[in-house]
């Protein structure tokens, strides 16, 4: 059971949870969005690690190399990256509107203003 082989997945786990912690614990809305994008980029790392083949090269045929890493996870992650950036862009637009409406982007201050 070579530790080195699984190291990538442990980094994935740590990254996932750092992002998740930022989302859960940090009241600042922008810090939450940063945590969210970290959370998603951890998943990208996990997918790409699936696709890696020992001794393989990037799946571009024709350069003489025979062993290729799997292209499928890479395609999925191309899509996921753009999904992540779209969500971040929308989140930031919301943060701007919240800043204009409430004058603050700290979650607890917003809740105070909302409490009836």
């Amino acid at each position: 059971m070579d530790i080195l082989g699984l190291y990538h997945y442990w980094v994935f786990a740590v990254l996932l949870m750092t992002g998740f912690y930022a989302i859960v614990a940090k009241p600042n809305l922008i810090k939450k969005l940063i945590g969210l994008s970290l959370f998603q980029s951890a998943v990208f790392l996990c997918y790409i690690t699936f696709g890696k083949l020992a001794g393989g090269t990037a799946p571009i045929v024709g350069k003489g190399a025979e062993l290729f890493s799997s292209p499928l996870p890479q395609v999925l992650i191309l899509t996921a990256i753009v999904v992540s950036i779209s969500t971040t862009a929308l989140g930031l637009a919301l943060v701007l509107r919240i800043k204009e409406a409430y004058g603050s982007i700290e979650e607890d201050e917003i809740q105070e203003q909302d409490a009836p």
Partner: protein
Amino acid sequence: MLAPHLPMLQVVVPLLMAPFVVLLRPRGLAWAAATMASLMAFAIAIVLALSVVGDATLTYRVGGWMAPYGIELRVDAFGALLLLVITGASSMALLGGQRSLERALPPTREPYYFSAWLLALTGFVGIAVSADAFNIFVFMEVSSLASYVLIAGGPDRRALSAVFKYLIMGTVGATFYLVGIGLVYMMTGTLNLADMAGRIEAVADTRPMIVAAGFITVGLALKAAIFPLHIWLPNAYAYAPHVTTAFLAACATKVALYVLLRFDFLILQQHLSGHAFQFAGYLMPLAVLGILVGSGVAMFERDLKRLLAFSSVAQIGYMLLGASLVSVSGLHAAILHMFNHALAKGGLFLAVAAFAAVTSGWRLEQIGGIARTMPWTFAAFVVCGLSLIGVPGTAGFLSKWYLVTAALEHGALGIALVCVILLSSLMAVAYVWRMVESACFAPDFDAETDADSTPNRDFAAFSHLLPTILWIVALANLYFGLANALPLELAKSAARTLLGGLP
């Protein structure tokens, strides 16, 4: 000529209309185009539903590639029923909501709103039709982003903070789902649902599979607002524009529940030993808690829309309860309740949209005397309320009937479940009647005295389209209460396919 391409056209029609709608600047044109697209999608859904009756399933290979390699669409009974719910809710909400939307949105931003509406419709329909795990994730993101935009459209500033919370929890849920299918992909090597089901047996070590099942269930529970993870739902539905809530309340959470059931029953339960017991063990207490807490809070809620939102949490608990019985009759009840609840809740929120045109707000004391000023709308509101409670003769009653019969098959546990169901339908009677009573007998509420409400008693703004739509929904509630061959048949064959494994 188009028949074989119908599953694809179901998604392509709203998808290609959405960008087109953004360009339609003149007022009202965007709404017309969106409604036309939604009605076309509804027509396709009906044709699909009719062609699927009798355990047939339609498959479609996108791009012409074979199943596990390319992406495949699959419409079975369960999918067809959900398609009917989604497109129906969207068409009714759009048809009825023009006037109320015109008041809620600034004219320059109307095309964007309707484009987002069509994108949400595309997302939901895309999920219902797709048979590829990652494809479901992509369309789940499309529908989520679009519904954030729809909810944030309203004049109320509290909608913004509610949508932000929904965005965070929704994205976390979707990413959990992504991690789940990632682990399953790693162990089975495929993304196609049918292929995945076939290959799970061969997987020797079950640890990643159990963790994957955990991630998928938690992720989809977040999206489906199942009990402990439903915190985003009440605010998001309460402060959104009324028409958005009418649309999303009827189908947003059901789509996530649909994916959860398909994943769990078709793939995980068939091949992971003991998973059926795990699924029932974890989700049944959550369902029961969801029912009791949802109805309980709804009984004491002052804000009309938050009250209905909490009742949605309870109704989702019903569906989950039916599903967690892990029997054909249980599933049958859950799926049927998806259909009936969409009818009832969609009608109620449309009625709230009609009331809001005249009343100054939607707290209970603000809708006093509405029964006299708008008798027809109020009557439809009562009919939909009765269907929510499950009074016989309405659609809600049938799903309650099947749920109780399904529960009774489980002996002592069944009796307890029946008591929960009956207790919560009593609570439903309580909160529906609180609304009806304050609407009928509370003294006429004059807006001047209430500080923060905005008096907008402009009768002129009140179009006659909304009451007619409302009555169509109310009559549908009654019709499907007495003669509901189509949804019944679809739900039954859906339950059989889910438990019988992939055909």
